[in-house]
């Protein structure tokens, strides 16, 4: 809050109007509808609906399909976050060590950020599609039975790689910023004490990078939970046999394809709780990070 302000009484409301109107119409109203519908059961034609309390939630949480989808999402998110962060950290530490060409490397590494997740998935699909992908052909010719359209684990591997690939740029830039914030004097002191590269990395750089790492872990988890819908939808369609059906994909599928409105709304509410928890976690952590620096 500024100490000096303008005296107008009505103007601030007018300035706020566009954002508040959009927020109410497209955020609060739909979110309240999701809450409301999550306690109703409606027939698929939308003719009748009745209050069923928490029955939708009970039905979902005891539905093996939902629990399976939850497990798929957790595996997918963690694998995507860890793979992408590990690669990005390796690249960032390498970029820190070179002097010449650093900017060129950075320019060449930030592209994938600009690629839509759905297209990232399709690009990998072009290469590894069992029917026409050249790399799928190479795998098969070398005796590896590659068919992500039938094998759930292979489909999962493919969407994880596509999702992680897309996120490398983001993690790379944050790790570079994190590495640059580490005081050089600490590393020099360790070098004088005789600590070599790997030892310096694990005892000094990595612990000091922890705030960045935690922050990225949360951001990547949120990304894998919500922003990867396009990858799943475009590449596997949740299949084969629901092997890659994440929670967001299931909300979409149950609501728009299977027309189970109450169930879909209840899933939305559960997702909201997950986002709120993750955001709260992130904020607590971001505060800490500010304090840290």
């Amino acid at each position, binding site marked *: *809050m*500024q100490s*000096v302000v*303008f005296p*107008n*009484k009505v103007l*601030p*409301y007018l*300035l*706020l109007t*566009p*954002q*508040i109107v*959009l*927020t109410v119409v497209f*955020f609060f*109203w*739909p979110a309240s*509808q*999701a809450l409301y*519908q999550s306690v109703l059961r409606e027939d698929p034609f939308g003719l009748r609906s009745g209050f069923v309390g928490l029955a939708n939630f009970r039905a979902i949480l005891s539905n093996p399909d939902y629990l399976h989808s939850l497990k798929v999402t957790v595996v997918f998110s963690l694998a995507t976050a860890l793979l992408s962060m590990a690669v990005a950290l390796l*690249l960032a530490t*390498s970029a820190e060590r*070179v002097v010449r060409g650093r900017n060129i*490397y*950075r*320019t*060449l*590494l*930030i*592209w994938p*950020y*600009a*690629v839509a*997740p*759905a*297209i990232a998935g*399709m*690009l990998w699909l*072009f290469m590894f599609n069992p029917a*026409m992908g*050249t790399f799928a*052909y190479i795998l098969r010719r070398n005796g590896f039975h590659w068919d992500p359209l039938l094998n759930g684990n292979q489909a999962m591997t493919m969407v994880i790689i596509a999702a992680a*690939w897309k996120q*490398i740029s983001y993690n790379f*830039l944050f790790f570079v910023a994190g590495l640059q914030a580490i005081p*050089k004097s600490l*590393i*020099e002191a360790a070098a004088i004490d005789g600590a070599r590269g790997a030892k310096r990395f694990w005892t000094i750089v990595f612990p000091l990078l922890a705030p960045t790492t935690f922050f990225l872990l949360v951001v990547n988890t949120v990304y894998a939970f*919500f922003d990867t819908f*396009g990858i799943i939808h475009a590449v596997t369609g949740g299949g084969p046999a629901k092997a890659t059906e994440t929670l*967001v994909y299931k*909300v*979409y599928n149950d609501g*728009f394809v299977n027309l189970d409105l109450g169930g879909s709304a209840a899933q*939305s509410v559960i*997702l*909201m709780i997950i*986002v709120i928890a993750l*955001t709260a976690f992130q904020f607590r952590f971001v505060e800490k990070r500010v304090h840290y620096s």
Partner: protein
Amino acid sequence: MIENRPISTLVSHLVLVIGILVVALPIYYTFIASTHTSIEIVRPPMSLLPGSALVENYGEAIGGGVERVVGVSLERLLFNSTVVALAIAIGKIAISFLSAFAIVFFRFPLKMLFFWMIFVTLMLPVEVRILPTYKVIVDLGMIDTYAGLTLPLMASATATFLFRQFFLTIPGELVEAARIDNAGPFRFMRDILLPLSATNIAALFVILFIYGWTQYLWPLLVTNDAKMNTIVIGLKRMVDFADASTPWNYVMVTAILAIIPPIVVVVLMQRWFVKGLVETEK
């Protein structure tokens, strides 16, 4: 550099080069595919060197080839994506700028309530309220309109926060000086606040343009008419119809054209992009 060890530097260069190859591979592969004929693409192994059909593929795909497959021309898809990305970026910046201005430079009842209302939207990404938001759009008759494609994505807390944080660092003396000189709030906004915010606006613009261009779930839901598809959705629909007669060369051309504009924006506006990314922290 702490110590000069040529071998370790060499290894670093090697790691970076391999990293770049991995990062570039999918895009390179698709670009190469877009220079081969459809027959060469579906019969693996495809050569990883450029083919001979570059000019034909791009010429035909733009000159009606894509339109025959999905019923909408490539130019129209690119146009739609550009409109959506620009509208989301500019709209979001404008409304966030105004609301941050109101929150920082005025004192009025219920201010904190509005602030929290905006803040809470961080926790409600479109993915968790798909169905009811879709219903709102249907009720408002906004299916297959640019308004329906962009308005629901315009309200968000991140840009408002960024502006708020920045406005708070502006010295109160500037406001005082403006008031003494008899400048009203609009004059102050136009002559002082806007020029000072230029870098922040550029940074946000890059991030939001990419955000708008790469949208998937929302355009998928609110467009029934092929003419209103964005290029990402158009590409998905081309792949959906995949059968023996799918013109894969057009698919590859569309994929390349779908990723080039945002890549150009990121690479050309790299400085602001990095700043925007680090400061909005999504």
